[in-house]
């Protein structure tokens, strides 16, 4: 019961903050609301007994990505606000398509009978997860490290100054 209350609290907070991320005109305010969304989502993960995921969410998103966003906004100096030159009708259309998609999937979920949960109320533990990650999912894990290395090199090459300034 109390878990459900915690879940609903954090879910409502996350949805409101996510809406504000999209609506805000100032990019810096958007980043702060994004941080709020990320932390509320971490709370939802804790309510779902995915403690490892919640910790990673706070460390990687809250500590890494949000700070990266703030630095980029400071570097590129987003003071002049990009005008949103779009009429009301295209905007409504562009909002309506995702909402329709959401309604469709919600209908499907409602019609699907999910298998009832196995009786164990403990939830999967750390040991089980670690064993599965380093045994069954070892290959994707190593592939992820190669991906991160490629991203490191690629980001440096793309963002290099000389490369941009030289036409050839």
């Amino acid at each position, binding site marked *: 019961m109390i878990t*459900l209350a915690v*879940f609903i609290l954090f*879910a409502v907070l996350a*949805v409101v903050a*996510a809406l504000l*991320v*999209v609506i*805000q005109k100032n*990019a810096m305010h*958007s980043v702060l609301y*994004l941080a709020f*969304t990320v932390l509320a*989502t971490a709370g*939802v*993960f804790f309510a*779902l*007994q*995915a403690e490892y*995921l919640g910790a*990673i*969410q706070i460390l*990687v*998103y809250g500590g890494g*990505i949000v700070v990266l*966003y703030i630095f*980029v906004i400071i570097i*590129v100096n987003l003071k002049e606000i*990009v*005008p*949103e*030159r*779009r009429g009301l009708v295209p*905007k409504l259309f*562009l*909002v309506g*398509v*995702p*909402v329709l*998609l*959401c309604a469709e999937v919600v209908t499907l*979920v409602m019609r699907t009978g*999910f*298998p009832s*949960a*196995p009786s*164990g109320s403990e939830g*999967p533990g750390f040991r089980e*997860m670690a064993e*599965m*990650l380093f045994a069954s*999912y070892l290959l994707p894990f190593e592939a992820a490290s190669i*991906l991160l290395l490629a*991203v490191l090199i*690629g*980001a*440096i090459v*793309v*963002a290099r*100054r000389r490369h*941009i300034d030289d036409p050839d």
Partner: protein
Amino acid sequence: MIPIEAVIGFGLIIFTIGLAGVLVRKNLVIMLMSLELLLNGVNIILAGLGRHLNSPRGSIFALFVIINAVSEAAVGFALVLAYFRHRKSYDTDSLNELKG
């Protein structure tokens, strides 16, 4: 006990908000933020299903999604910085050089 439908609905709402943000906004940085919202919505659904099925697979998949989100953010920022140096703007309207 949290009903699984509520978790999936919540994840879908976050996903929808992110998708609408990517489509509607014209500021490159806010579009990248909306992409993070999309991936967050998927992570919520994965964590909820892992809890529901009492399996650690949900958390493991969500972990890989987070790794991909970090990679996407890093490369996306490099592209935004390169584009900004090139053009001094982040308006997606001027990104039309490849248009036929």
